[in-house]
């Protein structure tokens, strides 16, 4: 799940300052589940925008705004309304905003902050679990990711900032990722995975440039 948070209204209104007529797009997947850009939140946002003295030309919940095909399909019937608007307020993650930018010509304003790729324990309790780093090492670490759960991204065990199984960052409240990994590997009888040296990550394959995946069709 892509976990998002709504920006403060003041910030949103500030970005919308130059625009009079606003169209709002919500997200039917992640932002709906996380309750930041679903039907209810879009409705409430429309009210707030109206109360600030602007006109809301229309709203839509696109099933998956980050899927260009779905975005085009769902907004096709609303092309004229969108054309007549000054700006689009996007209650989607950053990927959604940028898909909207690429396919609809209007200035697009983000209403949400995209926080992380995580899990939902319950509504209002979200935990980051994946950094989308590009080369998964979860097998070697008992299924617990040190890239995302260790603030230093340590690969060869805990640092000196671990005390009683807790992490120095944030004041010894969070579990040290490497203590979790150690315990898990020990339980699985796979401690050899801990003992083996992990070389530094190859950043040329990770996050130095925007990553694309293009399937190459093979003729059989």
């Amino acid at each position: 799940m892509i976990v998002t948070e709504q920006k403060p209204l003041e910030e949103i209104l500030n970005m919308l300052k130059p625009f009079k007529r606003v169209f709002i797009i919500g997200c039917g997947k992640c932002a709906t589940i996380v309750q930041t850009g679903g039907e209810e939140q879009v409705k409430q946002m429309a009210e707030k925008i109206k109360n600030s003295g602007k006109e809301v030309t229309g709203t839509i919940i696109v099933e998956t705004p980050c899927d260009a095909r779905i975005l085009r399909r769902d907004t096709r019937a609303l092309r004229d309304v969108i054309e007549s608007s000054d700006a689009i307020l996007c209650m989607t993650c950053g990927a959604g905003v940028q898909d909207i930018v690429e396919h609809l010509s209007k200035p697009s304003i983000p209403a949400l902050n995209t926080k992380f790729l995580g899990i939902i324990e319950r509504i209002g309790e979200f935990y980051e679990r994946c950094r989308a780093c590009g080369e998964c090492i979860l097998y070697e670490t008992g299924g617990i990711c040190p890239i995302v759960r260790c603030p230093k991204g340590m690969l060869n065990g805990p640092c000196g900032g671990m005390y009683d199984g807790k992490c120095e960052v944030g004041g010894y409240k969070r579990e040290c990722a490497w203590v979790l990994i150690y315990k898990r590997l020990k339980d699985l009888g796979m401690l050899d995975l801990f003992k083996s040296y992990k070389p530094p990550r190859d950043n040329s394959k990770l996050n130095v440039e925007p990553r694309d995946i293009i399937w190459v069709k093979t003729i059989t």
Partner: protein
Amino acid sequence: MSGAAISELMASLKSGKFTFTGELEPGKTANLSRHIEAAKKIKGYVVACNVTDNPQSFAYISSLVASYIIQRETGLETIYQITCRDRNRIAVFSDLLGAGALGIKNILALTGDHTTLGDTPQAKPVFDLDSVQLIKMIRQIVNEGVDMNGNPIESPPKFFIGAGANPNANPIELELLKFEKKVYAGADFFQTQVVFDIEKAKNFLKETSKYNVPIIIGIFPLKSYGVAEYFNKNVPGVKVPEDLMALLAKANEIADKKMKRAKYNEINLEYFSNFIKELKRTTPAAGCHIMSVGYEEIIPLLVESVK
């Protein structure tokens, strides 16, 4: 730690002599005269002296520059501390070659405290390498004369490579596994986190004796009651023993400044002499790393007292 000694620290540890090291922490300054004076005071009592690299993530003077200047001005060999927090592997490699050119012989390779703990928490935490990978990188430079990708170094430096360890760590099994990784990565010697509980030091030294790597145990004579309180409040896992706290508290009540200082010295000498003698008598500890920054006057007294 094979081959001819490349530094005085290495020679001392190789000889099996109980070895003392000290620590200097140059701060937010471009003038090192105070630290040079401190180094002069402890020279002859400690074999070498650590120079910290932005400790607790406070932005201070470069540890490489300070290591070089202090060594040059005093003749006291420095142990250049280098962390992974502020530099990626290119910058670390380049600093290591620079250190070689400046005549630095000893290195302590650390991961480094997290940026958010310091006085510039907005900084980007780099951590391109961790301490184990850094040790391995230095080992490759020294032994094979190559960088991380195997590219040859025209004239590779020689370093005596140190690593950190924490006998207070809990769970300790995990710390021991990490220790092993550092040994296999190429650590020549270890300096530990401050230890007050001698049983923890003894246990750690017993568990690690099979690796046959010199371990220098960190100790911290306490300049004042305030310093001891700071320790208990701010350094998790390190607790100043209650009996020592009580003695320091009593000394703290003495009004006369000179008498108070003398009393503090007396308490520290008594406590840490016994600690060191016990280490020497019952453990394979290679020495003590006296970390009391700003309390250099205790070092000659303490070292003399355990001769």
